């Protein structure tokens, strides 16, 4: 069975394999090797037998082919209503076909399925809300991604991402030492402006354990500093774990089920080791989904819940504002038209729509907050979800996908977009770069720091 050196059915588990992949600029060799990758039909058949049960089978079999899902899909509407972008068509022509043929599919089919899974679906789950049977094609596409990953048909960046998680327990090559050093550095760097600022590592029994996205320590550590400043301002007793701090899961985007489990167990071990009262994750949508919503099931937890209460950053912010732990200076509230991006992963998929609105009521002067249309659970994906942002091969399709969000933002007239989600934040940055509509975008943390009232005892002592 021919397998490539880079493109093969084995997940990346060693530094050497990872480096070889990284050295292959834009995956040129990788994708060339993919053209010769054979499908292990027996393995595919076994996977279907073991993992495709009545819920998903019914979704595939019972679909009435009514086409009601078409308009629910932003990729259908931004691609000039191309019938090949109808969700039911996309899933029936890929997963549906694999099931009908009981795994008897070839290389060309698998490459088509790969493009459909990663460039024609962001797993936003909106179609499931519009289907009379509740057929959730986003869920099916993430299942299909798992089948494709196990056969080696996965975009190059996501093969790397999965390898990063398996080797570093993080989506980027950030080791525990790097992480702890970054924490110390950030605490130090900001201690003059914020006397007493700490990023306590591995403190047992704290009220809060904080987890984040590896891109924060790697590329913009100021985000970590901002989190620390806000916990400091709110007087929280908090900590970060030296190991198990990375909340994201490119393994989820890649369909690497085993990797998903390993990654989330790493975080849960930290919770079990440090025994915090609760855990708070950063402003990231997929990290929340991977660690709080789906993660417990990957880890085999019977109640579907993480080992300790685990909330999204927006829930903590809303609570801090509600209880007055953080007070906003009324003079500094946002007094320009501003809109809010709803992340599919914690709004449609975790019921936090009203939490972010509550935050807006504190941060924005009445009359300046403008909703996108549609919004809350019915909002559209940013255009870059589900790993779409990160796959170079599908960049042109991703850029088309951004048009929905561009048009939604333009219709609000707002020049500032609050996006408490890494993927959404990136997509909105990219859409500004691509389409130049003159907007700014922000996470909550920097806005909160700018607007919060700093109590005198936390201010730096003036030199006399």
């Amino acid at each position, binding site marked *: 069975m021919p397998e490539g050196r880079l493109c093969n059915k084995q997940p990346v588990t060693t530094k050497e394999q990872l480096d070889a992949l990284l050295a292959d600029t834009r995956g040129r060799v990788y994708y060339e090797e993919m053209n010769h990758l054979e499908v292990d039909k027996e393995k595919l058949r076994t996977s279907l037998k073991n*993992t495709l*049960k*009545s*819920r998903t*089978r*019914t*979704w595939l*079999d*019972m*679909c*009435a*082919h*009514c*086409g*009601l899902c*078409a*308009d*629910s899909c932003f990729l*259908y509407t931004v691609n000039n*209503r191309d*019938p*090949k972008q*109808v969700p*039911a*068509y996309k899933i*029936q022509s890929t997963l549906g076909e694999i099931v009908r043929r009981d795994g008897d599919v070839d290389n060309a089919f698998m490459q088509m399925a790969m493009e459909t899974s990663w460039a024609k679906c962001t797993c936003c789950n909106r179609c*499931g*809300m*519009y*289907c*009379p*049977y*509740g*057929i*959730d094609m986003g869920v099916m596409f993430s299942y299909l991604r798992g089948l494709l990953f196990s056969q080696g048909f996965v975009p190059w960046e996501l093969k790397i991402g999965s390898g990063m998680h398996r080797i570093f327990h993080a989506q980027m090559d950030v080791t525990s030492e790097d992480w702890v050093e970054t924490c110390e550095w950030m605490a130090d760097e900001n201690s003059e402006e914020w006397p007493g600022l700490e990023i306590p590592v591995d403190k047992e029994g704290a009220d809060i354990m904080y987890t984040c996205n590896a891109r924060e320590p790697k590329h913009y550590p100021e985000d970590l500093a901002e989190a620390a400043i806000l916990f400091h301002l709110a007087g929280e007793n908090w900590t970060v774990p030296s190991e198990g701090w990375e909340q994201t899961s490119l393994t989820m985007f890649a369909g690497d089920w085993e990797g998903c489990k390993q990654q989330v167990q790493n975080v849960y071990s930290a919770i079990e080791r440090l025994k915090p009262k609760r855990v708070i994750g950063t402003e990231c949508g997929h990290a929340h989904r991977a660690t709080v*919503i*789906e993660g417990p*099931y990957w880890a*085999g937890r*019977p*109640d*579907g*819940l993480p080992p300790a209460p685990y909330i999204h950053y927006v829930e903590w912010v809303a609570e801090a504002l509600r209880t007055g732990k953080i007070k906003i200076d009324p003079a500094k509230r946002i007094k320009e038209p501003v809109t809010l991006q709803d992340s599919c992963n914690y709004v*449609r*998929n*975790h*019921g*936090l*729509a*009203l939490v972010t609105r509550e935050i807006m009521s504190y941060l924005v002067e009445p009359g300046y907050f403008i909703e996108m249309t549609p919004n*809350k*659970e*019915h909002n559209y994906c940013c255009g870059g979800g589900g790993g779409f942002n990160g796959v170079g091969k599908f960049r042109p399709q991703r850029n088309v996908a951004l048009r929905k969000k561009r048009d939604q933002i333009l219709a609000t007239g707002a020049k500032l977009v609050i996006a408490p989600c890494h993927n959404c934040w990136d997509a909105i940055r990219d859409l500004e770069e691509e389409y130049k509509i003159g907007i700014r975008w922000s996470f909550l943390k920097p806005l909160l720091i700018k607007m919060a009232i700093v109590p005198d005892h936390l201010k730096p002592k003036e030199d006399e």
Partner: protein
Amino acid sequence: MYEFITGPLLWVVFAVFLGGLAYRVVWYVKGLSQPLDRVAYSSFPADGAKGAARSILFWLLPFGTHSWRTKPGFTAAFFGFHIGAVLVPLFLAGHAVLLKQRFGLSWPSLPQGLADVLTALALVSIVGIALRRISLPEVRIVTTWYDWLLLAIAAAPLFSGFIAVMHWGDYQFWLLAHILTAELLLVAIPFTKLYHVVGFFLSRAQIGMDYGIKRGGRKGRNMPW
């Protein structure tokens, strides 16, 4: 002939219909898997039940969901068809008479005029649904010969029954055609995706439990279908 197809054959048909659907239900429920579906069905039965009930009820209501409201024409045809296709067979006076004769059951029935209107509405709706299938590219691409076959199987008893009741053409022929096509439909239901007569409730309940337990229900936010 009439005696046979409304007697022994009807018994067999009902047995296959009910037995087949019972099998579908058992197969579906037994196949649900907490780790694979990623829904903690058994840990939160109250949240699950609430989510399931909401998920079914809103979708049973004409224009009760965002999706129904987005497509008013289709929604009208959909409910026009389904209301006729469910209520008329269950509560037609002629069917009640048969039940009384054959099984000694007394059964409520709809006024004949209303039943005729509902049947006519259902037939018009079927035409609308068929035209939509042909004319909209996003529906055409997912349509197969199987969809047309099932639509024909579902439409045939309504069509033949309506003609028989109206006494258009040869009454005996249309009556027999009606009974046989209806029996074909009943037998087809458990063996084809027409099993949605139970599948709709199962699938909607499942996604409702997913939303009620895992995707926000336990955060106190009801899914705004």
